[in-house]
């Protein structure tokens, strides 16, 4: 088992290296000179040469590549061209802000999706199912920000239930003492639960937006998967053995499980790279808005850092997914584990 996980991790590390190369290539392959972007169009050749020297752009590509790899591996992602703050630090303070609404949002989406998909599958062809299908089509056709604005209109403007979409903290909130730089982590460290509560009350609408937006694909997966399995000989036999409806449902759901987990990881990656939209609407100080800013300004280290972190997070997600699916399905488990066990004597000396 450990060997299997290690092999997955090994592949992930390889892919990560490829990712780093890609993110390095962004600078070298994309048109435009970072020095010009940094200094503006009226920079003197001397200034440009100086910046080239500072950024190491005067060295050969190969040297710069190795340099970049070395720095990245030690956790140095460079400094923003414009603000001068270290990209790594910026990421560490901002990533928790994004995850605080993204993860609950996806969990909400999963719960909503499973509930709606199940309901639709069990009432297939009847009114609840038709309502569901129509609802999913609407949700899928609606861009994320429209949904966000709609929710804001209802809950902020009309009902006054939600706070203004002006970021993570109210102006009256006193930020916790700085330890890590991330407001959330610091609040936990300082035990400032009020601030945490304030953050979550502000995160409510982003979470609901994500929940509804991503509930549609989850719901569709569940409905399709359940409809198929509910008509399968496996479920017929389970019913013929007199299993209770809930037991039958659990049998059926275990068939949909793998597809759901795959969707979870895919949507996590999609949501992370699409975080800019929600964060713009809610003025949320997460990685999304920051990276969008970087892209618009041509702030290369920021773009590189963002690409790298998104990629690494997705890769990590896929490793976990792979391992979980293999662990949960005895058939896949057998295939994944047995040949390895037999191969041990051959592999051992090289390890």
């Amino acid at each position: 088992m450990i060997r299997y996980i290690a092999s997955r991790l090994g592949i992930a590390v390889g892919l990560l290296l490829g990712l780093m190369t890609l993110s390095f290539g962004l600078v070298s392959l994309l048109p435009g000179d970072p020095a010009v972007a940094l200094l503006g169009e009226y920079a003197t050749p001397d200034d440009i040469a100086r910046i080239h020297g500072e950024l190491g752009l005067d060295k050969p590509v190969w040297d710069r590549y190795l340099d970049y790899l070395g720095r990245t591996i030690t956790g140095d992602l460079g400094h923003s061209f414009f603000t001068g703050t270290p990209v790594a630090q910026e990421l560490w303070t901002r990533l928790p802000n994004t995850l605080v609404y993204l993860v609950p949002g996806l969990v909400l989406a999963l719960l909503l999706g499973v509930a709606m998909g199940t309901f639709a599958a069990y009432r297939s062809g009847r009114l609840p199912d038709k309502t569901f299908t129509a609802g999913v089509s609407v949700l899928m056709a609606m861009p994320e920000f429209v949904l966000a604005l709609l929710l804001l209109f209802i809950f902020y403007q009309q009902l006054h239930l939600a706070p203004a979409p002006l970021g993570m903290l109210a102006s009256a909130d006193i930020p916790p003492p700085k330890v890590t730089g991330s407001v959330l982590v610091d609040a936990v460290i300082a035990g400032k639960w009020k601030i945490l509560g304030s953050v979550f009350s502000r995160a409510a609408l982003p979470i609901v937006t994500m929940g509804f937006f991503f509930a549609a694909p989850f719901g569709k997966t569940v409905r399709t998967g359940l409809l198929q399995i509910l008509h399968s000989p496996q479920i017929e036999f389970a019913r013929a053995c007199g299993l209770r409806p809930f037991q039958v449902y659990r049998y059926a759901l275990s068939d949909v499980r793998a597809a759901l987990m795959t969707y979870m990881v895919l949507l996590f990656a999609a949501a992370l790279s699409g975080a800019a939209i929600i964060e713009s609407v809610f003025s949320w100080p997460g990685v999304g808005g920051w990276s969008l800013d970087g892209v618009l300004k041509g702030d290369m280290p920021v773009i590189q850092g963002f690409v790298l972190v998104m990629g690494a997070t997705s890769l990590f997600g896929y490793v976990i997914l792979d391992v979980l699916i293999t662990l949960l399905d005895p058939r896949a488990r057998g295939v994944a584990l047995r040949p390895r066990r037999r191969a041990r004597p051959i592999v051992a000396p090289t390890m």
Partner: protein
Amino acid sequence: MTAGLEVRGLVTEFAARGGAVRALHGISFDVGETEIVGIVGESGSGKSTVVRSITRLLVPPGRVAEGSVVFDGRALLDLPERRMRELRGRDIGFVAQNPFSALNPVLRLEKQFANIAKAHGVRADAASRERAVALLEATGVNEPERVIRGYAHELSGGMAQRVVIAMALYLNPRLVIADEPTTALDLTVQRQVLDTLRKLTSGSGRSMLIVTHDLGVVAEYCDRVLVMYRGNLVEQGAVSRVFTAPEHPYTASLLRSVARPAESPNAAEAARAAGPSDRVQPVEAAMSETGGA
């Protein structure tokens, strides 16, 4: 017939665009105690629909439109679904056609046995597990203790079908319904599984309704036979009578279509020599001819 199964005027329909399509046109038959009754007929004749109508396992758009099914004095079609569920598995066992698609692929077999026990209010403990192991042994599973700890995909087809039989018999049902229980198996294994099934059903005071398209199986294992054709029960009677003196022309053509004429109930001898499914091919070939008539 008092204690067994009594089916009267069963009409099953499948809702379709522009009205319902009838799959069964009023079927009536009985299965007496310790009796083994076979249902034969070509594909699409409604054999499986009969079984699903009786056990109420039809999925929409299928539904029983008319008729009555009385089992053990209870009118099954009038029972609330909750009571019907309690009956399934406990009073009526069901042997599925393909064991690999019937068993849960991700649960250990012992867990699946335990779930059946729990569903019927039986404690899933060491004693109930022991009964499952004993039953597996009785159905001829090698190393039942090891098998029950494993998964379905680790078994051969014959072994998996024995596990399915053991699950169907787990709570000691009085009626066993088998839907083409050997179609998915090798020829050599078919016979062993059928022998096991007979030993554990009518040999143990149970009755059995067995769906098959294999006349050899009927000849050897059944007391009575129901012949179905296009949703109708065209003929029923003791196997010896139906096989020697068929009354309905379809039955006659069905019997003629068998390569080695099964003109006597002693077809068992021939079947034993040839293996039951030798006969399948010619039967079905002839069926498609008669189907057009």
